[in-house]
């Protein structure tokens, strides 16, 4: 069991592990948005729901999360960078939409989401610049 975990971990590498975590978070968040979004979320992203209904944006979260989950297993960092690109999309949308809601005073408390999602975008951008240490192997074996 421990060997299997080590093999998976080796296969993912540090870039893949973080991408996997982002992917899981985004898929779950997307499912919650599609099924039963919280009032605060809906209020903060009014500028987006004015264009498309909430399930559409939930689907964006799920698709981007799924791309991240798939790209987490990609051993070529020249390609997994698009996984990092995908994870920034919904978080940048959320941060931007909450920013509009905040500065337009439609939802003054939206500033917390602006900085929370903005920080996540920043973190994803920073991690995307990390080179992979060691070598990721197709089968995870040394």
């Amino acid at each position, binding site marked *: 069991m421990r060997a299997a975990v080590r093999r998976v971990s080796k296969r993912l590498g540090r870039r893949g592990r973080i991408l996997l975590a982002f992917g899981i978070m985004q898929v779950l968040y997307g499912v919650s948005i599609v099924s039963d979004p919280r009032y605060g979320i809906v209020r903060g992203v009014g*500028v987006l729901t004015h264009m498309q209904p909430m399930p559409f944006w939930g689907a964006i979260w799920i698709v981007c999360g799924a791309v991240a989950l798939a790209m987490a297993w990609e*051993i070529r*960092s020249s390609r997994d960078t*698009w996984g*990092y690109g*995908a994870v920034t999309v919904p978080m*940048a949308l959320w941060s931007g939409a909450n920013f*509009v809601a905040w500065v*337009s005073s439609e939802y003054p408390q939206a500033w917390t989401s602006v900085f929370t999602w903005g920080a996540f975008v920043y973190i994803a951008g920073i991690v995307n*610049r990390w080179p992979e240490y060691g070598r990721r192997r197709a089968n995870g074996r040394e």
Partner: protein
Amino acid sequence: MDASSGLWGAVVAAIGLLSLLVTGRRGPREVPPPAGTAQDPTPEQLQVSPAIWKDMRGEIRELRTKVDHLTDVVEQGSTRERSLREHLRMAMKVIRRANRRLRAAGQPEEPVPVELIPYSLD
């Protein structure tokens, strides 16, 4: 500022797309030049001219592309190998089943090819 305006929605959507393109195109940072290059002159250390370092980086990029290609080839080979192994296991099962029927019918069994024996699931 009217938050319900479609214009702001379009701006936010453009930011989202922009973040995809910017992040996707910016891959991992290039490994910084080792200490002792001309940009970081330290006495008593070997210095490498920027031209040589630039040339080396070009070579590294080219090698990375080749490694990516080879990784593709190896992964395709692994997939093919898995599929062939599966077929061999199925062939072994078919032969065993046929031999059981031959035994039941009181007829001599067909010999199992030696190459297939390692793929026996029994």
